[in-house]
């Protein structure tokens, strides 16, 4: 049985359910308390769980993560919120050095079950410090897991999985989807496992790998190509680290063509790794080069004239798919 929720409500529900299920789960961050968070993701939690488990912090991103690591070492499961993913740069050292290396340097005798929620992404007139997609930095750092849900269902299921995971997970929730992505969500305890992609549309001709807010334009583009009889298989990665190699290879083995679509910039965005891995593992099967449709290598401007010119969209994806189809 399931019900319709927005992506944002799905996140809120996952938090509430996990906090009810496990007294060790608590949330901390700026304005996450009575205010309910800058985007409302923690609304109602303070009322239900009180000061001790819903903690408004000072403006101290580095400490927020460091405190989470300390709490995790004592068996707690902190869920830290970065008010915007852009500010995760202020907590960078605590994430990539403190959290990501602890299990390794402890010789496996401890781990760090923390979740860092980071509202990311553009298309919301956020300008250069409220639109960033910082996922690649963390995918590059061993010891971290990185997820990026595209649907309300996954927003809930992946957040639950992240909270229950024994390792540090950076959870990127796309701001553009908060209210726009609506759909059924699992009731109760169903989780979406970390590391498993979802095929959103089947097709034999081209594999399209994407995640987050780029799923919708990708699906639209796939429908466009269907009109010309080209069937695109759209795979939503959902987890970026570790990404689902089996699902990717299985699809490419079938289609022999692949396009990667992401909102992050091109150079060393996750598309680079996917492309390199497909080349390494499936060179023989490729009938065309793996292509990328991404944000160009620059910052996110406020002006919609400029931002819309930069963002990947259905048309850009269609053009790339056509190039691959005709290749």
């Amino acid at each position, binding site marked *: 049985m399931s019900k319709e929720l927005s992506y944002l409500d799905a996140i809120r529900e996952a938090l509430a359910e996990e906090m009810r299920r496990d007294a060790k789960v608590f949330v901390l961050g*700026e*304005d996450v*308390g*009575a*205010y309910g968070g*800058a985007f409302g993701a923690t609304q109602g939690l303070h009322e239900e769980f009180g000061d001790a488990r819903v903690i*408004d*912090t*000072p*403006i*101290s991103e*580095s400490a927020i993560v460091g405190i989470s690591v300390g709490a995790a070492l004592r068996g707690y499961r902190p869920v830290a919120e970065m008010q*915007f993913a*852009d*500010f995760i*740069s*202020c907590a960078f050292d605590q994430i990539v050095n403190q959290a990501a290396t602890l299990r390794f340097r402890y010789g496996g005798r401890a781990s760090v079950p923390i979740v860092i929620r980071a509202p990311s992404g553009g298309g919301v*007139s956020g*300008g*250069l*410090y*409220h639109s960033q997609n910082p996922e690649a930095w963390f995918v590059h750092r061993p010891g971290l897991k990185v997820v990026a849900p595209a649907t309300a269902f996954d927003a809930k299921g992946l957040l639950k999985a992240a909270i229950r995971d024994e390792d540090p997970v950076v959870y990127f929730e796309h701001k553009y989807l908060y209210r726009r992505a609506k759909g059924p969500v699992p009731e109760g305890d169903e989780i979406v496992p970390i590391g498993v992609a979802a095929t959103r549309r089947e097709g034999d001709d081209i594999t399209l790998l994407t995640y987050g807010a780029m799923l919708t334009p990708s699906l639209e583009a796939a429908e466009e190509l269907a009109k010309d009889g080209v069937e695109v298989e759209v795979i939503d990665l959902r987890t970026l680290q570790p990404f689902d190699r089996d699902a990717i290879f299985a699809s490419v083995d079938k289609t022999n063509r692949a396009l990667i679509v992401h909102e992050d910039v091109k150079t060393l965005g996750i598309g680079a790794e996917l492309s390199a891995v497909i080349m390494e593992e499936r060179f023989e099967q490729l009938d065309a080069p793996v292509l990328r449709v991404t944000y*160009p*290598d*620059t*910052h996110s*401007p*406020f*002006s*919609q*004239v*400029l*931002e819309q*010119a*930069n963002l990947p969209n259905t048309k850009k994806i269609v053009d790339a798919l056509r190039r691959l189809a005709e290749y």
Partner: protein
Amino acid sequence: MPPIKRTKFKLTPEQLLEMFYWLRLIRAFDERLSVLVRQAKVRSGVYTGIGQEAIIVGTCFGLRREDYICPLHRDLGSFLMKGVEPRVMMAQMFGKQGGLSKGRDSALHSGVSELGIFGNTSMLGANLPVAAGLALTFKMDRTDNVVVAYFGEGASNTGDFHEALNFSGVHRLPIVFVCENNQYAYSVPIERSMAIDDVAERAHGYGFDGVAINGNDVLAVYQSTLGALARARGGEGPTLIECKTYRWHGHSEHDKAFYRSDEELAMWKSRDPIPTFTTYLQARHVLTDDKMKEIEARVAQTIDEAVEYAMNAPDPNPQDAMTDLYT
């Protein structure tokens, strides 16, 4: 060193009227922005400083063109006092080509080096190390110019605040650190973000003076700033001036600010810096009714022209989305 708060000062009637003009212009500019947001004509997050104008006017009034300011997100008024045309600031807020950032930004993240204005990132506290760097060069150049660096009480909890003030103390840099303590960081009241009454206390941990003053009293702010500027110009190093104040509007124009009581707001509105100063000017017969009319008219006209200009200003050119990244 002479005590900061009792610095001797003298202002001519003309200067006093100019101060009054700035108070009114800055208030009117923010109020108009607030309306434009409600009319959905300005689409970006707008952080007004309504109620806090005395801090900007009191700290900027004694500055030279060569002095540098490092404003925070509420300090649009300081850009005006430092010499940016109102129409350009308005175009900036509209994200138009004619703005400081050519539409890349719709807030205060863009500076003007010739006018001694630094435009910070969104990252709170991040302007303070930069302020220290600017001040270091004033010292290297053996000038007696000064940097005035602004931050909220919430930003005083960031690591950058600490590192910047410590370095400034060690090198006795010519900086005036101005804390705009408006009692809240977004929804978080000061008592949940620090365990002290006065942010000024922190200055002592860096080896320089900190004073807490009434930030709604433009003359008191001006007086203490004069003292701090004199110290800085005289090679006696930094001073922290904490200005107690209050923001009338929400954190941004989208914030209903339910987290504070009507009583509290009423109390602080009764401390509006403008009537206090008006009473003083009238008592001294500096501000006649005619002068008042004249100034109000000038203010209204300036704002109208600015809005007019910004509304009709061209959007950036999509071709420019990729420019200005590298030299």
